[in-house]
């Protein structure tokens, strides 16, 4: 029996429609499948704001952790993975073992870029200026002059199940101080 015209139409149209749905969904959900980079995903203004707020909180708590010689009171609030927290405490422990406390004061932080790297991951590059002062732990007597550091840091972040953006990695990068800080919507 020859197939009906309606049957033939269904055999052509349904698979084609299915392909259209699949590739449209791929363009939105998995852009790398259609040859676009993950970075082509867009980060909403709210996400961008939340990423920068997490980095602000992380820098503030980082300073407090160092200034207190590693008091763990703020550890739960520190928006970072366990591995990053562990690393911070190794740094503090290195100083504590030598009877030292290092004051890390943030002088300036200028976000240079915040880009998505996946559906729930992002990367931010921030130009930061820090001042450091080494003190004796026992009486907080200064053991060094105030020293400054300026440079860039590339942060990897991911969205935690509770919606917070947490730092998953960071490393120094060479960037120049921006003449005009880029505008960011806070």
């Amino acid at each position: 029996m020859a197939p009906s015209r309606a049957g033939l139409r269904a055999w052509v149209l349904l698979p084609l429609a299915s392909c259209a749905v699949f590739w449209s969904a791929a363009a939105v959900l998995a852009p790398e499948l259609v040859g676009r980079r993950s970075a082509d995903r867009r980060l909403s203004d709210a996400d961008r704001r939340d990423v920068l707020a997490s980095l602000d909180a992380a820098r503030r708590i980082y300073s407090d952790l160092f200034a207190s010689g590693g008091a763990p009171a703020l550890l739960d609030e520190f928006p970072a993975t366990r591995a990053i927290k562990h690393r911070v405490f190794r740094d503090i422990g290195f100083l504590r073992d030598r009877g030292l406390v290092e004051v890390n004061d943030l002088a300036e932080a200028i976000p240079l870029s915040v880009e998505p790297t996946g559906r729930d991951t992002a990367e931010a590059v921030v130009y930061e200026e820090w001042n450091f002062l080494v003190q004796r732990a026992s009486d907080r007597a200064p053991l060094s002059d105030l020293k400054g550091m300026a440079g860039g840091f590339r942060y990897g972040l991911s969205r935690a199940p509770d919606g917070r953006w947490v730092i998953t990695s960071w490393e120094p990068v060479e960037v120049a101080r921006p003449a005009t800080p880029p505008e960011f919507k806070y």
Partner: protein
Amino acid sequence: MAQTPRAWSHGIARRAVATLGSPLAIATLGLPILTALAHSAVVKRDLGPLLAAGLFRSWGAALAAAILLGLLDASWSRRWARLAVLGGLLALALQPELSRLVRFEGGASVGEGEEAPRWRWTKAGAIAATPELGQVELEPEGSVLLLGAGAPVRLAVGASGHVPGATITLREVGWAPAFRIRAPDGTVVEEGLVELSQREPGFIELASLPHRFYFSEAGKGAGADGAPDRLRVRVQRGKRKVLDAELARGEERVFDGLRISWDDGASWALLEVAGRSIPYLALAGLALVAEGALAAWLARRRSR
């Protein structure tokens, strides 16, 4: 005669199974999968991201479910040839998921005088086996010799060779200076080789110190081994860069009360490893499809 409710619902279920498992439904769900696989093949893109994509896997699961319904329908209606074809299609539909589970990728390095490569990183599916690379020798002229493949295979940079279960590509031959970190009293705190890589630049971390050490070439080769005569050494502790200096061989610099220096090292090679597995499920699926199609053809000829 009126149908009983049970017979009526059974009829509905049969029709639903026949529709959702129909050749049209299977073709509708299968075509996007075929186009995605064909697209990856045409643009010569690595299949890994496709196989791991949630969308592709969900679509594949829907296709497998439709084929299962088709199998159920074929067994109810005792259409054995169709049963074989659908069984084969199910095997073909499940092959991508199996490939994802057994997929293996890795990077390994082998140093001068070492017999077996060390894994730098691996990315393996849930049931993937780590391939045995066998003995790999780094030769003075910058090639490597694979000795785990039966007859020795010599690889130049960029070339690939096979060992059982894996393809090995030589990506880079580099140099690894020996570094040493001493305490103020001269005792050695840490020492070892650091592999300088153009392809995978990065840092090293040591068990006893919280610092990150970044080494890079600062000048090309006055050394007898053609290695650079100066290295840029950066040491980072937390936010603080505690050392950023160019060091000559044997020269010492102080960071955080410790002294760091470097000296002659050894050559090393970076190998890229991709697991190779035969798609048995897909081959069995193709055989079943062929058998079912042949049986259907013979049955049609006999009935004429």
